[in-house]
């Protein structure tokens, strides 16, 4: 017992402080990944059954809706391209480096942490797909989190609402910067740390990533401010933020690759 206990303690220490054991975990996960696939089969079966059993009229309606959506998106994209080019030109005038191109690779959420207090999800893309630690993950509505562990065919994503996760953000309206951290109590709440009472922020402000720290590219939506409480007894204001990403419902997620990485 003592020997095994000592061995586990050394392993835990090595795992948490250094990364000697990443290789061990990497190869051991070849053996356990099939279990994750198996655990996900009911969901993927129900997905495919749903896909196959849609009525014709529903599909026609959905097709119509998606076409309309595509049209409006394309219209906005045209404008965006123009703005991007203009932005690049202005940046050149300012002698700033041009914004790096990003491209996304689609992955699917196949599981979540069995520990209810650790907000992590498992996605079905791993080192075989070029996923790396620290890679930003988005869904259709905003920032979801970042990759914290890479296995051969899957990886773990730490959600932005995990208490251990900090996101550098800025207020879209005026560019004020802050740090958003996850909370213990809820999957759907972020708080801003150390916000002084004079900080210009109101309910409804949209927060986007600021790009500070170089981990998340700038400009992705993170959340919407849901309440700002100024308590005279507290040194800082209490700012609650509701994340825009659908943290518990997203099935399809987007892994962001920097254009210059490969």
């Amino acid at each position, binding site marked *: 017992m003592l020997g095994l206990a000592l061995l*586990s303690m050394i392993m*835990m220490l090595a795992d948490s402080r250094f990364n000697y054991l990443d290789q061990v975990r990497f190869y051991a996960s070849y*053996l356990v990944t099939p279990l994750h696939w198996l655990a996900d089969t009911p969901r993927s079966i129900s997905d495919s059954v749903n896909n196959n059993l849609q009525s014709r009229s529903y599909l026609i309606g959905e097709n119509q809706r998606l076409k309309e959506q595509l049209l409006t998106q394309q219209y906005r994209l045209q404008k965006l391209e123009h703005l991007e080019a203009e932005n690049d030109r202005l940046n050149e005038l300012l002698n700033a480096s041009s914004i790096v191109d990003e491209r996304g690779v689609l992955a699917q959420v196949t599981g979540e942490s069995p520990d209810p207090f650790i907000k992590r999800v498992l996605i079905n893309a791993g080192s075989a797909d070029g996923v790396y630690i620290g890679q930003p993950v988005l869904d259709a509505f905003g920032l979801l989190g970042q990759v914290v562990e890479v296995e051969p065919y899957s990886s773990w994503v730490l959600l932005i609402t995990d208490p251990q996760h900090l996101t550098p953000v800025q207020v879209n309206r005026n560019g004020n910067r802050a740090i958003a951290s996850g909370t213990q109590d809820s999957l759907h709440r972020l708080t801003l740390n150390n916000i002084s009472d004079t900080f210009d922020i109101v309910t409804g402000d949209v927060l986007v990533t600021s790009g500070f720290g170089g981990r998340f590219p700038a400009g992705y939506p993170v959340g919407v401010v849901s309440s700002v409480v100024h308590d005279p007894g507290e040194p800082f204001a209490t700012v609650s933020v509701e994340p825009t990403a659908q943290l518990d419902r997203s099935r399809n997620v987007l892994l962001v690759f920097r254009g210059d990485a490969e």
Partner: protein
Amino acid sequence: MAVKFSKHHGGWIIFATFAMAALFTVFPLPQWLESYRPEWVALVVIYWVMALPHRIGLFTAWIAGFFLDVLEGSLLGLNALALALVAYLALSLYQRMRMFTAIQQSSTILILVGIHQLLSFWVLTANNQNTAPNLIFMISALSSAVVWPFIFLGLRYLRRTFHVA
């Protein structure tokens, strides 16, 4: 064949039960049910230690815990340590546990899994990874105790049917 391997028999059944327990551990559950998920692997470890103490012990429990750590993506060695401790306690209790009634067994399970949960909690706290807001993580000890009689009967049926020894 059976005579040749009479000493150790039915290893694949043991392996299959561990695999099923691991599968149930990562099976997606609704958010509100998540806290009530029993510690399946711990229960299977306790059963096999009770039934075959000469065969299943600390080492098996430790290996199962190691793979559980990889499966859950948790700190490597966390479940290994907790399950080895559970197996150690079960090894010292198995003679008594075999004589216990269902209620007594379940209360023993409550304590064993409770110790398992507390140990995980302490280690995570020491590693600054603990994010449990309160003692709700102990609920799974209770649910483990509740499902124990069924696990016990099911595994005993398997053991007798396939002559695992």
